[in-house]
């Protein structure tokens, strides 16, 4: 009766949605984190203009992911959200603030500085919270019979603080390389200048996390130090991407630093996936344990297969229309 392994299909769809979200909202969150450090107010205008046309499309992936999790893997939804209760609140509050700041800063004159802070603060808090979620996932959850039984702040450990900082650094790097690609002149020069220190920060923090992770969980250690050596190609690729960022910034390439940073994120993400596969609620539950009923997954799959390609096409078209440099004073509004 069950023709397809629907949980597996859904795992790919949601996994794809997550990396799409991380890459795309990542650079505009990164621009927000870097916002207060920009050389001038005029540069801040340009920074915001560079992400203005696309940021809200980027966040749609998050909402889709939230609803998709409830439908396809309700156990993930009903364990992660209670366990990360405070973090989820901070994430949503941060995203709301920065979203509204985005809209109103363009229209504001005298109150502009307030929206600047809302944008930067919201972006920073949301990014940190996302990193902490990743850390909490690696740590695993305290559950009994598929229900979270831990405390409110179990997720907040030195390890998750570090993954939170790692996400801050990583998104900043995506942001700075995005600015290299999309801007010119003094702002681009500034972006070149901060990219290598940010890359160093990312490598140091990601390095510590990588060394630390096997100690957080035995299963991860076994996965990496068993005979499944082929997965070691992932960290090697990560390092190659890092080197590529370094080299292309040195050579003043404009597009390559961003592309290589995306590569760095993708290989790190895949590394995380193989560390935990097929567990979606570590340490106990696999994606098949967490799945909803076959009929429910099938019912939603039909609509998703119809609409997601349209959303992707639209997204691609948006980026195509807004290709090229954003110049100072060339207001989006």
């Amino acid at each position, binding site marked *: 009766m069950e023709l397809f392994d629907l949980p597996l299909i859904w795992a790919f769809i949601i996994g794809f949605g997550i990396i799409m979200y991380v890459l795309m909202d990542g650079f505009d969150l990164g621009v927000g984190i870097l916002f207060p450090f920009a050389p001038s107010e005029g540069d801040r205008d340009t920074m915001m203009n560079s992400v*203005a*046309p696309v*940021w809200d499309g980027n966040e*749609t992936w998050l*909402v*889709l992911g*939230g*609803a*998709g999790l*409830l*439908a*396809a893997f*309700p*156990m993930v*939804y*009903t364990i992660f*959200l*209670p*366990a990360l*209760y*405070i973090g*989820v*609140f901070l994430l*949503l*509050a941060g*995203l*709301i*603030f920065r*979203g*509204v700041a985005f*809209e*109103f800063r*363009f*229209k*504001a*004159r*005298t*109150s502009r500085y307030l929206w600047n802070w809302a944008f930067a603060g919201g972006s920073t808090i949301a990014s940190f919270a996302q990193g902490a979620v990743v850390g909490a996932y690696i740590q695993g959850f305290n559950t009994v019979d*598929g*229900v*979270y*039984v831990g405390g*409110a702040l179990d997720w907040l450990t030195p390890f998750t603080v570090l993954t939170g900082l790692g996400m801050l650094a990583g998104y900043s790097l995506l942001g700075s390389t995005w600015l290299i690609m999309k801007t010119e002149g003094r702002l681009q020069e500034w972006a070149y200048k901060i990219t290598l220190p940010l890359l160093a920060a990312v490598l140091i923090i990601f390095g510590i996390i990588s060394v630390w992770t096997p100690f957080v969980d035995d299963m991860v250690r076994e996965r990496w130090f068993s005979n499944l050596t082929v997965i070691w190609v992932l960290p090697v690729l990560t390092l190659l991407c890092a080197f590529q960022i370094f080299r292309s910034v040195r050579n003043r390439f404009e597009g390559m630093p961003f592309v290589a940073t995306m590569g760095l994120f993708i290989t790190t993400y895949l590394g995380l996936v193989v560390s935990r596969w097929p567990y979606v609620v570590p340490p106990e539950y696999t994606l098949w344990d967490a799945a*909803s*009923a076959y*009929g*429910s997954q099938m*019912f*939603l799959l039909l*609509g*998703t297969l119809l*609409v997601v390609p*349209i959303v992707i096409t*639209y997204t691609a*078209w*948006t980026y195509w*229309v*807004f290709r090229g440099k954003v110049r100072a004073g060339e207001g*989006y*509004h």
Partner: protein
Amino acid sequence: MELDPLLLSRIQFAFVVSFHAIFPVFTIGLASYIAVLEGLGFKTGNPVWLKLSTFWTKVFAVVFGMGVVSGIVMSFQFGTNWSNFSQATANFLGPVLSYEVITAFFLEAAFLGVLLFGRNKVPAGVHLFAAIMVATGTFISSFWILAANSWMQTPAGFELINGVFHVTSWSEAIFNPSFPYRFMHMGLASFLTGSFVVAGVSAWYILRGREVEANRKALSMCLWLILFIAPAQLIVGDFHGLNTLEHQPTKVAAMEGNWETSPNVPLLLFAIPDQDAQTNHFEIGIPSLASLILTHEWDGVVPGLKDVPRAEQPPVAIVFWSFRIMVGIGTLMILVGLTGLALRRGGRYFQSTWFLQVLRVMSIAPFIAVLTGWFVTEVGRAPWLVYGIMDQASAVTPSLTGGMALFTLIGYIVVYAAVFSAGVYYLMRVLYVGLEDQHDEEEHEAERPARPLSAAHVPFEYGEDKPSNPAKQGGH
């Protein structure tokens, strides 16, 4: 004091959902109005219709943006505060809510951009088509949301396996017994909301002598709509009530403030329900009228609250009074429609200052009616979350503590207060700038998609971009 996570979660959900609901209920009605304006403009070529449409599209953009932002929290709250409920109902509610998200994205991706930014870039027919699709899309969105809510009120098409709902029939589950009534009732409520807001704003402009010609046309349309829809809402509401009587008799008992199951139940105009004493104080009622309305017989038997144990009764006073406020406003709306008709001759409806003032005040009435209506149906099903099967206490997140719930309750109140005072303030600015002086910034924009709010080219602060002295333009 012991903090109760259940009570705090209920307050938080009520707060967030109430705050959210006022935006979509307006945009659904407004989207249809814009589509009608576009259609009239397309057919007649009269620039007044397009002027109105351009202005109200800006308002739509801002309100739609706020609805999306406030809705994000909703989709996560089911998991954070009601995880047992989510776990049990995910097989049905997950796909249904996801379809709502998918609909909204599809709408935004395909048609919203064309409606907001495409007027000078696509052929007029395509623009009209986009307006119609946006209006249709808002209804499809509400279709899914109301299917989910109605299923919780009158669950159908499922079997329970180990405490988890499994869908046995999607059509029975989606088109569950209360869904058609709720959908109709809410659709008409959206039209009424759109009509009264447009009417109130138009009245305000006319009072100030601004763009009288265009606003008079808008006002006239709204008054015709109100004349027919307000009474229609009364009839649909009555059917909805009969459906509730069949499936949720205790809710109807609370709405009527009726404690004992009995015939010849009076329609109470005033009472102070006392849940502890299980009775009412200071009753003023019309004999047998509740029996007549609910059963269509003078001596029909109306169920009483005491049919169920006290623990299964909803908070009677909230339901009782919310219902009266909603019906009272509905009655006022019918009166406004009739008054508008009476003032038609000689065009007094746009010359009578007192009537225009009434319309101005009435522009907030539909929001109160919608909220109190939802209070009736949501509070009235307490203590049930999935009616008769899962109660609120067993639905709440087990790991949630009172302190956590209080923290996020205060947090969301702060966030919403800050964000929405900015949003509503900005909306007022858009209204203040008005229909005049719609300098076509769209001309300057390259062909590109953009976000809803950027469609309203109005600065945030007062003092800039003021409309040129209104007195000069109108006939003040």
